[in-house]
């Protein structure tokens, strides 16, 4: 077996036996499954209130939830990907790099025939495959739950959109895998290896959008509606600077278009470009790691 392929298999086997990723994985899949039922409960509550109000003659407007598309029920999944999925990806990346450093096996690897770039890219590929399996499972569960809630199987184009959502989520999460690996390779302790990417994640997901829009922080957990940036004063400048770096907002925008949210406007091109740019930067920073950096000892 090719050493690169052997490393991919080794990575999958090792990650599969670690408890923290297993726990996060169960939470993530559980929340994905719950997403459709949470959406259904919200719709039922609003509809009940609407029917009551309409019965008393308080409104003649149509029920705002009367004609939501089936993919509406997957909208909360976007937030779970941003929160739990990203943390899972960071943990997978950190554990992957730290596993070698804790086992002190880096020198055993580096005195064999695989270059650092090949070895690290194979490790990333292994985690990517694992993550693909997780997201594939989540997509199936999501489709099944939407079917259960709506009473009908989603149409082929809707299934395609759901598949596209989880594919984009995979690319989005791979950046956080790379971030975790980079931190796991370079940090001096396990604690800082986990803490640093989590801080970076919070900056990208929460701080940059706040700097650009002055939006209320809780609004950033809205899965669809993009915060509107004021076009004057300091916000015009900060929005221009931090907008492209607000990875979470770009992901949410792409997800909203894929889930056919009526409020979503524009195209996915810009968002996907930003996601790919982050991913390429992350992969580059990992695979370009030199032997001396890989051999650094940890101080836990």
């Amino acid at each position: 077996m090719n050493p690169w392929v052997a490393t991919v298999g080794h990575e999958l086997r090792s990650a599969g036996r670690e408890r923290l990723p297993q726990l996060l994985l169960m939470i993530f899949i559980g929340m994905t499954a719950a997403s459709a039922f949470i959406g259904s409960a919200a719709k039922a509550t609003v509809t009940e209130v609407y029917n009551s109000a309409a019965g008393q003659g308080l409104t003649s407007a149509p029920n705002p939830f009367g004609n939501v598309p089936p993919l509406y029920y997957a909208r909360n999944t976007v937030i779970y990907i941003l929160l739990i999925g990203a943390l899972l990806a960071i943990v997978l990346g950190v554990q992957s790099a730290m596993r070698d450093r804790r086992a002190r096996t880096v020198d055993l690897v580096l005195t064999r025939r695989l270059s650092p770039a090949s070895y690290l890219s194979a490790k990333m590929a292994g985690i990517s495959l694992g993550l693909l399996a997780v997201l594939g499972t989540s997509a199936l569960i999501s489709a099944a739950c939407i079917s259960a809630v709506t009473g009908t199987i989603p149409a082929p184009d809707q299934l395609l959109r759901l598949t596209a959502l989880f594919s984009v989520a995979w690319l989005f999460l791979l950046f956080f895998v790379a971030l975790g690996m980079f931190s796991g390779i370079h940090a001096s302790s396990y604690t800082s290896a986990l803490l640093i990417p989590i801080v970076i994640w919070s900056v990208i997901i929460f701080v940059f959008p706040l700097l650009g829009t002055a939006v209320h922080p809780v609004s950033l957990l809205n899965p669809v509606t993009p915060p509107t940036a004021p076009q004057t004063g300091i916000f015009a400048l900060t929005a221009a600077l931090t907008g492209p770096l607000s990875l979470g907002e770009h992901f949410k925008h792409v997800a909203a278009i894929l889930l056919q949210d009526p409020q979503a406007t524009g195209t996915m091109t810009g968002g996907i470009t930003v996601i790919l740019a982050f991913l390429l930067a992350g992969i580059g920073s990992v695979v370009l790691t030199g032997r001396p950096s890989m051999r650094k000892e940890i101080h836990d």
Partner: protein
Amino acid sequence: MPESEGFGASSGFSYRQRHKLLSMTEMAIETSALAKTYGSKQALEALSLEVPSGEIFGLLGHNGAGKTTTVNILTTLLPASSGTARIAGHDVSTGADRVRRSIGYLPENVQFYDNLTLAENLTFFARLSGVPDPAARIETALAAVDFTGHGQELMSTFSKGMRQRAGIAQAILHEPKVLFLDEPTSGLDPQGVAKLREIIIGLNQSVGMTVFMNTHLLAEVTKTCTSIGILSSGRLIYQNSVAATLEAFPDQASLEDIYLHIESGTPS
């Protein structure tokens, strides 16, 4: 280990035979004016060393003498600042990949992947070395370190001594010509030290493997090594066979006394 049980037996050309052919034409390890500096600190200074094939060479020296730096350069983990080094005829800087195919390495305090079994760990390293039939080679390597039957045990259940034996098994999976051991007996109990000595001598005598080891345990060097070198502050101040060394210092009671005598700067 009988020659017919592996280490090249399948090629119809035993490891010992191949090794002897090589030993007629080349040194296992040769360095010339090898030096390494870390900033302004000279860790290794003009090291010129020759270790013939088939030796068990012990590199001695106090902490910080440059032993680990030497091993790191010879195993291609660290680039030298100047000078040259050749392992089994291959230059460590220009032929690093060929050097890596020729060496086995056991660093100090290797732990392995705790949540994998010994066999899973060894399979991974065998595949990284391009070993075509890992299962058969693992069986042979485990037999060589007297560890048959432990393959399915989780590494997390292994003692320090067992990990060292597993470490040697991983280092010989790809039938290296030269085996590098960094403080192999560090932290082992007397039984563990004796077992490791038996394994090292066994590998050397059965397949003619050249062994290069760093160690502090001078009593162990007398029992294990065929030749020694002494590093002091990055300089090689002595190199000879163990037998010749013991003969040359008849007034010293042990190799430890000889070492301290040479280190103090008054060699006879």
